[in-house]
């Protein structure tokens, strides 16, 4: 063998060693997130939130010295996209853990696959109860709809003292689970539900419902929805001269809601996970860092994406290995101060944390109250 050939061979070997070393030098977190389609706005916030958590962790030395890499795919919030994405993340990208920055349909579909392959999977803000029922590798950092619905009942019946309530429900798993939780506890707080209406996620014009609600003359309105349905709804309710309190949930939780509803958003109350006026350093830092990174104000989805990523990063640090079973156990033991509160999980993988009540005041979301009633907020155990 000539010297040149020997040198070439040596170079090739070194080269391959270096590239292997580089590849092995990152820990991969997978993420399915809607970046196109109707849920793209929430997807963007969730992704930026998760990216922020990873950048912050990498700046502190990653996982015990190893840098973290986020591998994300656009799932269009669609179950049929989420299934191949989950398979690709597991077999092709070989991610150690995964998070969902998506809605319930796709998260639920992906959860079963991550569970059967033994890959820990944390849902950032999808609400469907079946997600965590997929098994012991699946966790959720947001409230199930029922828990938030119960908090809504306490807010209206006890804290605001309003008794005659109209319920306007978004016809999807999010709206229906909120309504179920609300109705479950309504009677306990002396609430009488005088009528109920449903609308589809595509609706933006609520003329007929608004007209009927006006005739109902309620003391308060419990309306589920996202900022893009709730913005027009609140605007149309107020324009029709209905000035009773409107109580929403984390789906409203975006500056976009205030922009769409304009001045009519003043006084709207929501149950959510992010307290803008929080004095907790972690939350304040998140709000500042997110605004700097994203160029717009943090919302609940962004904070939830950040929280989910932070939960898996902390668990990997504690486990000190890329063994997925050990990481799963570490996630189950989580006790972490995150931007959405102090996070721990119950046996089913459901989050235990306080519910934040925010109000629109002077064109921005502000602190109104906190509900920390452990019995009321107990997530489902099975």
């Amino acid at each position, binding site marked *: 063998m000539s010297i040149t050939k020997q040198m070439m061979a040596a170079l090739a070997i070194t080269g391959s060693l270096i590239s292997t070393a580089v590849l092995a030098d990152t820990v991969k977190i997978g993420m399915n997130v809607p970046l196109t389609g*109707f849920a793209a706005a929430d997807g963007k916030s969730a992704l930026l939130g998760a990216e922020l958590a990873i950048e912050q962790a990498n700046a502190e030395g990653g996982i015990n010295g190893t840098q973290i890499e986020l591998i994300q795919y656009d799932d269009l919030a669609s179950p049929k996209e989420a299934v191949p994405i989950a398979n690709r993340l597991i077999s092709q990208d070989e991610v150690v853990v995964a998070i969902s920055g998506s809605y319930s349909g796709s998260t639920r579909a992906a959860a079963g696959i991550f569970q059967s392959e033994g890959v820990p999977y944390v849902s950032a803000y999808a609400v469907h109860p079946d997600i965590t029922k997929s098994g012991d590798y699946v966790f959720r950092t947001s409230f199930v709809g029922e828990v938030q619905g119960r908090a809504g009942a306490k807010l209206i019946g006890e804290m605001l003292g309003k008794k005659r309530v109209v319920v306007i429900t978004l016809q999807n798993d999010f709206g229906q689970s909120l309504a179920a939780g609300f109705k479950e506890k309504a009677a306990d707080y002396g609430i009488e539900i005088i009528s109920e209406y449903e609308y589809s996620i595509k609706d933006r014009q609520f003329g*007929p419902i608004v007209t009927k609600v006006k005739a109902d003359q309620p003391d308060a309105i419990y309306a589920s929805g996202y900022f893009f349905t709730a913005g027009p709804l609140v605007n149309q309710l107020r*324009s029709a*001269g209905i000035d009773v309190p409107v109580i929403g949930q984390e789906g409203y939780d975006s500056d976009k809601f205030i922009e*769409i509803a304009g001045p009519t958003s003043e006084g709207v109350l929501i149950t959510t996970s992010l307290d803008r006026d929080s004095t907790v350093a972690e939350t304040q830092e998140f709000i500042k860092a997110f605004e700097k990174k994203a160029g717009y104000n943090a919302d609940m989805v962004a904070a939830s994406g950040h929280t989910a990523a932070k939960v898996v990063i902390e668990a990997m640090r504690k486990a000190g290995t890329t063994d997925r079973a050990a990481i799963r156990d570490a996630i189950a033991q989580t006790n972490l101060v995150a931007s959405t509160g102090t996070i721990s999980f119950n046996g089913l993988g459901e989050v235990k944390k306080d519910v934040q009540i925010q109000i629109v005041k002077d064109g921005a979301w502000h602190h109104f109250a906190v509900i920390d009633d452990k019995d009321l907020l107990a997530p489902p155990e099975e």
Partner: protein
Amino acid sequence: MLYVELLAQGLVQGSIYALVAVGLTLVYGLLRILHVAHAGLFTLGGYVGVLVTNATGSLLLALLVAMVTVGIVGMAIYRLCYQPILDKPPYVALIASIGLFIAMEEIYRLVFGPYGISFENPPLQDVVQMFGVTLRLGEVATAAGTLLLVGALAVFSGKTRFGTAWRATVTDPAMAESFGIDIIKVRYLNFFIGSAFAASAGVMVALLNNMVEPTMGSVPSYKALAIIVLRGLGDVRGTLVAALALGVIEAFGTIYLGKFLDRDAIAFAFLILVLMVRPQGLFGRA
């Protein structure tokens, strides 16, 4: 009083359906193409309307700019998308149209962002009392604008030479051409007017919701198709009636059937019912 208010809400909603459906009717009548991308032009109208209003403060100017711009884009769609495939079977154009519609939604998302845009100072938000019915000025303007536009179209197609040429081309293109009518010019005009109408509907919906989002066209896309089927594929007069009827049925249905059927299901149940009784459509001849 509740019934009268519901009726008024239904008529406002129906006006918007009418404006979108008229454009589809025109295209279908002339070229036998189901122009799904029409709903994408409706969305574009909303975007132009909000952007121009925010820049100039004038809603009327924004409406005009939206109608002219979108009208021109409509003509471009005919020239670039449909004209090259006119000799292919109808489903080719339909598939092209659906593809174009999806592409338009994603282009809006890339250009204008996923969150949608709103008016900085939403115009026409004041409330008026008319005949005991409470309506926002925007809703009154929507209904009045629709009547004005559809009325103008009726006069144009019925009383002017160009309108006569147009109707002749719709009835029998070959015969019309042999009489010296420039049928290419008629097609461009057709797309311009239809698209401008869709744009006006987009501006009005932007006004009523104070929001324009990339997927805003998804509901009108299929509902307008339902309306042109209802009307009996082929003439203009019934579109207004069919659209208004659908709006009113939805308004009452949302309140009294909302527990079992959502708004869209109500619309399509109505469509199926009509087609069962009158397969030729509400106003078609057997």
